[in-house]
C-alpha cells in the first residue's frame, strides 16, 4: 500500500539533511507549480511504495509567503498520510509554534526532535516522553546529521500513517477566543470534515482571505463572522491574529518549560556566545570580516588557487607540463598533433584549436580557483559565520538606506545572482525590495571570478588584492546606491526592522561541503560545455570570417573580420574608460550571455601560439585600463539569466529598464573615474575624458550629500 509522508518544520531544522539520508539518490527536485519554491520528493530507501515530500521550511501555516502557501496547500489539498514534524531541539519553543498548527489540520503527526547532539552539547535535557504526553502525539529523539533515531522515527511515522488516526490538538485558546471560534464554526464549514472545522474556524478568526475564498462563504456569513471577531477583539484589546499567536505561545510555554532542563547555569555563555563576543564586537567585527574575506581571496586567487590555475592554463590548456620528469603535452598540443596527422582542413583546425579549445579552455582554466573559493564560501555559510555578517552589516547598511535583510540576497549573490535576486522576496517593503534587486548583482558572483583572476594574473602579478578589492567595491557600490536611491521619491521611506536568528556555530561536515562544492563546480563545468562552448564558436566564426573583395571567406587578419567591424562601431563608447578597442568591447558584450564569456572571448580574440593569454593581454592594455575594464564588467548589467530574474521580480517594464539602466550607468561612470583619475594622478595627462570624469563625479557627490527632500520625518 503506497503512502505519502510529508516532512515539515522550520527552516534550518535539518529537514533536507533528513530527507537526503532517507531517500539517498532516489529523489527528484522540481518546483511547485506557479512559484519558484523548490519541491523535493523521493522514495524511502528500501521502500519504493513510500513517497517522502520535503516541504519548504516554514514558521507557521499563515499565508504570507510562497513557502507557507505551498506547504499549507499541500497539507490540506493533497493530504499526506502522515506528517513527520521535525523540531529543532536547540529552539524548542519556536519549533513548537508550527507543531500546534500541524496538530489542527487533521493529519496523523509524529514529532522528531532533531539536533539532539547539539542539545546535549549545550547541556540541555529534553524530556521527550513528557512532550509526547502533552502534545498527544508520538515524539522521538533523532540526529539527522549523525543518523541516529531515524529507523525508529520512520517506523513510528509509518505506523501512524497506516492507522490513519488524525492528531487531536490538546491546546485551546482563551475563553473569549474559543467562544468566537464556536460561533464561527456554527456559521462556516459545515460541509467540511468534522476534524477540520476547528482549523477552518481558527483561520477565519484570523481573517485568512484564502480560507474564506476556499470555503465559498457568502457576504452575510462573512459579515457575521466579522462581528464575532470584533467583539472578541474589543473585549481583549488586541487584533485577532495577535490573540491567536499569544495563546499558541502561552500553550507552547506550558508544554516546553517542564520538558526542558538546563545543566549549565542560566545566563552563562555557550561557546557560540563566547565566539560572538569577539566576532560581532562593535569595534572588531568589521576588521575581522575584512581579514577573513581577504584571506579567502588570497588563498583562492593568489595562493594554492593561483598555482593550480597557472598549471591548468599553461599546462593542461597550454604547452604542457612536466610530471615526474616526463613531458606531458597540453590539450592544444595533443589535439593539434591529432588534427595534423589526420590532415584536417585549416579552417576546421582553427575552429577547434583557436575557437573551442582557446575559448572553453580560458574559462575552465580558472576552475581550481573557483573550487577553492566555493569551499571557503560554503564553509563560512555552513559554520554560521555568514549570519553574523548580515547582523554586523545591518547597522552600517541602515546608514546607507538599506537594512541587513538586504544582505541575505547579496550574500546568496556571491554564488549566483539569480537566486540572490529571487531571495529579495523575503523583503516586505517594496521600495527596499526593488533597491535590493537593483544592487544584488554588484557583488561579484562566481562567474565573475575568472574575469578578476585573469586581470589579476595578467596585469598585477596574480595579486590577491585585485579580487578582494572587487568584492569590497561591490559592497561600496551597494551602499552608494542605497544612499543615492533613498533620496529619490520612488525609494523613500525607512528601512524595515531586521530580525535574524543567529544559529549556533557548528563544524560543517565534509559531506555537506563536498556536496556544495560539487553543485557549484559541476554547474560551472556544464556552463563551459554549453553556453561558453557555443559562444566561443560564434566568436571564432565572426572573428575569422569577413567579406574579402565582396566574397565571403576567411579573413586574412582578425582586424578585418565581421566581429571587428561590429566591435569598432561600439568601441568608441568605451574610449573614455581606457579600453576603447573592439576586442574588449566585444568581450564585454559577450559577457551579457555569461560573465565567464568575457574570459573565453578574450581567449579566442587574443589567442596566439607563441605566448599565454595573460602575456598577450599585458601587452595590449595598461594596468589602469585593465582595472577599469574589470570595474565595468563587475558592476554593469549581469548575465541574461540574471537580467531575466530582474525582469520577473521587478514586475514592470519601467522598473526593469530603470534597474538595467542604472547598473550600466554606474558601471560606466565608476570605470571612467578609475581610468581618468588614475591617469591624472599617475601623470597621464589631462583631457576631455578627465573633464567628463570630474563633472560626473561632482554631480554624483552632490546627489549623495544633497538634502533628502523625501526623508520621512519620524514622529
Amino acid at each position: 500500500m503506497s503512502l505519502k509522508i510529508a516532512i515539515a518544520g522550520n527552516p534550518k531544522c535539518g529537514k533536507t539533511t533528513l530527507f537526503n539520508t532517507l531517500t539517498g539518490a532516489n529523489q527528484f527536485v522540481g518546483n511547485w507549480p506557479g512559484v519558484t519554491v523548490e519541491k523535493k520528493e523521493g522514495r524511502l530507501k528500501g521502500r519504493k511504495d513510500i513517497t517522502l515530500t520535503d516541504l519548504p521550511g516554514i514558521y507557521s501555516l499563515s499565508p504570507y509567503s510562497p513557502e507557507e502557501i505551498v506547504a499549507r496547500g499541500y497539507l490540506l489539498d493533497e493530504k499526506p498520510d502522515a506528517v513527520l514534524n521535525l523540531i529543532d531541539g536547540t529552539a524548542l519553543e519556536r519549533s513548537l509554534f508550527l507543531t500546534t498548527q500541524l496538530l489542527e489540520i487533521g493529519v496523523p503527526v509524529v514529532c522528531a526532535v532533531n539536533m539532539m547532539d547539539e542539545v546535549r552539547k549545550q547541556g540541555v535535557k529534553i524530556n521527550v516522553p513528557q512532550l509526547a504526553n502533552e502534545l498527544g502525539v508520538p515524539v522521538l529523539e533523532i540526529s539527522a546529521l549523525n543518523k541516529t533515531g531515524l529507523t525508529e522515527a520512520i517506523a513510528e511515522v509509518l505506523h501512524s500513517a497506516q492507522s490513519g488516526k488524525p492528531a487531536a490538538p490538546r491546546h485551546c485558546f482563551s475563553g473569549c477566543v474559543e467562544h468566537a471560534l464556536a460561533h464561527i464554526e456554527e456559521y462556516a464549514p459545515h460541509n467540511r470534515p468534522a476534524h477540520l472545522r476547528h482549523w477552518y474556524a481558527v483561520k477565519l478568526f484570523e481573517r485568512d482571505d484564502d480560507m474564506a475564498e476556499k470555503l465559498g462563504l457568502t457576504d452575510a456569513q462573512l459579515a457575521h463572522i466579522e462581528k464575532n471577531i470584533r467583539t472578541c477583539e474589543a473585549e481583549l484589546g488586541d487584533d485577532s491574529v495577535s490573540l491567536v499567536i499569544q495563546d499558541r505561545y502561552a500553550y507552547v510555554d506550558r508544554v516546553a518549560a517542564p520538558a526542558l532542563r538546563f545543566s549549565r547555569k542560566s545566563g552563562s555563555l555557550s561557546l557560540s556566545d563566547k565566539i560572538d563576543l569577539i566576532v560581532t564586537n562593535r569595534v572588531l567585527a568589521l576588521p575581522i570580516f575584512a581579514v577573513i574575506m581577504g584571506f579567502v581571496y588570497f588563498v583562492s586567487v593568489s595562493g594554492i588557487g593561483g598555482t593550480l590555475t597557472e598549471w591548468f592554463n599553461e599546462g593542461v590548456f597550454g604547452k604542457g607540463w612536466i610530471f615526474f620528469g616526463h613531458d606531458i603535452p597540453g590539450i592544444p598540443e595533443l589535439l593539434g598533433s591529432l588534427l595534423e596527422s589526420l590532415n584536417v582542413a585549416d579552417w576546421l583546425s582553427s575552429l577547434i584549436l583557436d575557437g573551442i579549445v582557446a575559448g572553453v579552455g580560458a574559462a575552465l582554466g580558472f576552475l581550481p580557483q573557483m573550487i577553492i573559493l566555493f569551499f571557503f564560501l560554503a564553509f563560512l555559510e555552513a559554520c554560521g559565520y555568514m549570519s553574523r555578517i548580515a547582523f554586523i552589516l545591518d547597522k552600517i547598511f541602515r546608514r546607507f538606506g538599506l537594512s541587513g535583510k538586504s544582505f541575505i540576497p547579496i550574500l546568496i549573490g556571491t554564488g549566483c545572482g539569480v537566486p540572490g535576486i529571487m531571495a529579495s522576496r523575503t523583503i516586505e517593503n517594496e521600495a527596499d525590495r526593488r533597491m535590493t534587486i537593483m544592487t544584488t548583482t554588484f557583488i561579484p558572483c562566481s562567474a565573475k571570478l575568472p574575469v578578476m583572476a585573469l586581470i589579476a594574473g595578467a596585469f598585477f602579478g596574480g595579486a590577491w588584492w585585485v579580487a578582494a578589492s572587487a568584492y569590497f567595491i561591490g559592497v561600496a557600490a551597494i551602499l552608494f546606491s542605497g544612499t543615492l536611491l533613498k533620496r529619490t521619491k520612488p525609494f523613500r521611506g525607512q528601512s524595515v526592522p531586521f530580525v535574524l536568528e543567529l544559529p549556533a556555530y557548528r563544524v560543517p561536515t565534509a559531506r555537506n561541503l563536498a556536496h556544495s562544492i560539487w553543485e557549484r563546480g559541476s554547474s560551472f563545468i556544464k556552463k563551459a560545455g554549453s553556453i561558453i562552448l557555443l559562444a566561443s564558436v560564434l566568436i571564432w566564426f565572426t572573428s575569422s570570417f569577413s567579406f574579402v573583395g565582396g566574397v565571403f571567406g576567411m579573413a586574412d587578419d582578425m582586424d578585418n573580420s565581421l566581429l571587428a567591424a561590429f566591435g569598432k562601431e561600439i568601441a568608441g563608447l568605451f574610449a573614455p574608460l581606457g579600453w576603447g578597442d573592439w576586442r574588449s568591447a566585444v568581450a564585454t558584450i559577450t559577457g551579457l550571455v555569461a560573465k565567464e564569456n568575457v574570459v573565453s572571448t578574450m581567449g579566442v580574440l587574443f589567442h596566439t601560439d607563441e605566448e599565454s593569454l595573460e602575456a598577450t593581454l599585458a601587452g595590449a592594455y595598461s594596468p589602469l585600463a585593465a582595472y577599469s575594464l574589470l570595474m565595468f564588467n563587475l558592476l554593469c548589467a549581469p548575465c541574461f539569466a540574471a537580467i531575466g530574474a530582474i525582469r520577473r521580480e521587478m514586475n514592470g517594464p519601467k522598473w526593469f529598464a530603470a534597474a538595467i539602466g542604472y547598473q550600466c550607468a554606474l558601471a560606466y561612470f565608476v570605470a571612467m573615474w578609475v581610468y581618468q583619475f588614475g591617469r591624472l594622478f599617475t601623470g597621464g595627462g589631462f583631457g576631455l575624458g578627465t573633464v567628463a570624469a570630474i563633472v560626473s563625479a561632482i554631480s554624483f557627490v552632490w546627489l549623495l550629500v544633497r538634502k533628502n527632500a523625501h526623508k520621512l520625518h519620524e514622529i
Partner: protein
Amino acid sequence: MMLDFIQNNAGTIIIGAIAAAILAAVLIGLVRKKRSSDCPARRGK
C-alpha cells in the same frame, strides 16, 4: 571523383562530423532546457 574527394578529406569529414554533432547536441540540450524551465515566478501573497 566523389570517392577521391572523400579519401582526400577523410580527416576533415570525420572530425567535422564529430564537431557538428557535439555542437548540435549542445544546442538542442540548451533549447530543451529553456523550454522545460518553470513558468516565470509570481510573488506570493
